[in-house]
């Protein structure tokens, strides 16, 4: 089997470059959804009412305990049946977002529980409102362990996007499989897709480290 450079540069690279925005879009939107939904799940989870906190904990465990692929298929088949017809990319973003929201909720919770009880008591003694307690006391102190973990989930989501190819979302992996079956040349298509993932993942890791440094600098000063 010989490697065809001409085919690589004339067909594979341009067609894969064309779908890179889809992968990036899926990653960023899923991450944002996970951040917001995770916060909501965490707030339900730490609710003093056990009627709310126990089901919330069960839901988080259920999402964390089943494979992402299973959840994507589940959404893909269930949503149209109950009358919600979404484009595949949206279904994929929702699936990735929900799965990672459960992971984010646990990260948030760990961060908040990490704040010593004395801080809560002091805020209460100073008669701070719930809003100010969270905004000025609890959240700034819980961020340092949360931020790096969220950064890892961002990269994790990026590496989970090829699973969306099963929902026929036109992202990198899907495009490379398509090229492979059109030209009967999988070697170049899959290898270049792998290189794309590697480069973008390393870039994302550098970005996350940069953002971490910036956020840490802002918290400390």
């Amino acid at each position, binding site marked *: *089997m010989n490697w065809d450079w001409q085919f690589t540069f004339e067909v594979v690279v341009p067609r894969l470059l064309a779908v890179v925005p889809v992968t990036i879009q899926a990653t960023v939107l899923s991450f944002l959804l996970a951040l917001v939904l995770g916060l909501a799940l965490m707030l339900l989870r730490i609710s003093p009412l056990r009627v709310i906190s126990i089901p919330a904990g069960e839901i988080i*465990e*259920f999402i964390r*305990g*089943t*494979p*992402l*692929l*299973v*959840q994507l*298929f*589940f959404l893909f*088949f*269930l949503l149209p*049946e*109950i*009358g*919600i017809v979404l484009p595949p990319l949206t279904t994929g973003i929702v699936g990735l977002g929900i799965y990672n929201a459960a992971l984010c909720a646990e990260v948030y919770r760990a961060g908040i529980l990490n704040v010593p009880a004395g801080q809560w008591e002091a805020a209460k003694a100073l008669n701070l409102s719930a809003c100010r307690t969270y905004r000025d006391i609890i959240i700034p102190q819980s961020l340092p362990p949360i931020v790096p973990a969220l950064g890892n989930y961002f*990269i994790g989501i990026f*590496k*989970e*996007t*090829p*699973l969306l*190819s*099963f929902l026929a979302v036109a992202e990198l*992996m899907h495009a490379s*499989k398509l090229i*492979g079956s059109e030209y009967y040349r*999988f*070697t170049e298509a*899959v*290898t270049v*897709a*792998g290189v794309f*993932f*590697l480069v973008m*993942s*390393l870039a994302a*890791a550098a970005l996350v480290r940069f953002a971490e440094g910036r956020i840490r600098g802002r918290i400390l000063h």
Partner: protein
Amino acid sequence: MIDFDYLATLDFSVPWKYRWQLLSGLWVSFCLMLVSSAAGLAIGIVFAMVSRTRHAVIRWMIAGYVEFFRNTPLLVQLIWLHFVLPLLTGINTTPLVSGTLALTLNVTAYFSEIARAGINSVGRGQWEGAQALGLQAFPTWVRVILPQALRVMVPPLAGMVINIFKATAILSILAIDDLMRVATRISNSAFKPVEMITAAAVLYLILGSLLALGADRVERKYGPRRQSA
């Protein structure tokens, strides 16, 4: 509007009818998890030990391996190994072989990082003590360093094993009859995708929870000793 009536029409007699197939798929998933975890852990520990060498080339090679497998998606590695490697080398692998191989290569990278952190957590005094007692390299590792490192490694290892179990679902694309593939195959012929996928999710959850429970017990027995307050 959401059509909740559909939920009332769900027919869970279908997954029940195919329960033995689903359970055999679960067994295949479990075996894949077991093989990849065992092989990945063993190779990962060896990689972590070897990467303490003074030879920069070997260190760089292992670091490159770890970074490569941690920074590309498992699905890409799987397809690359299954479709491209046979074309490049001429060795044809069955789906089961390439699936297990890809999963093992992938998790080895993670295990090697866990092992590295565990080994690094052993204090310098332990190394110096072993040297002062005149221990050779082998007994230093096996009797002094690794027993202490393994204790620290138990919690991340437990999480990793459960992740591997969930990751086996991806292997279903290579026509390995694991739980996910059995469920999708039956749903294609019985036209009951929601019921079959739900049943698969429940089975994954049950075995995953049992694994987590087991991991918790192992952690309590062999995990890092907590300072008593």
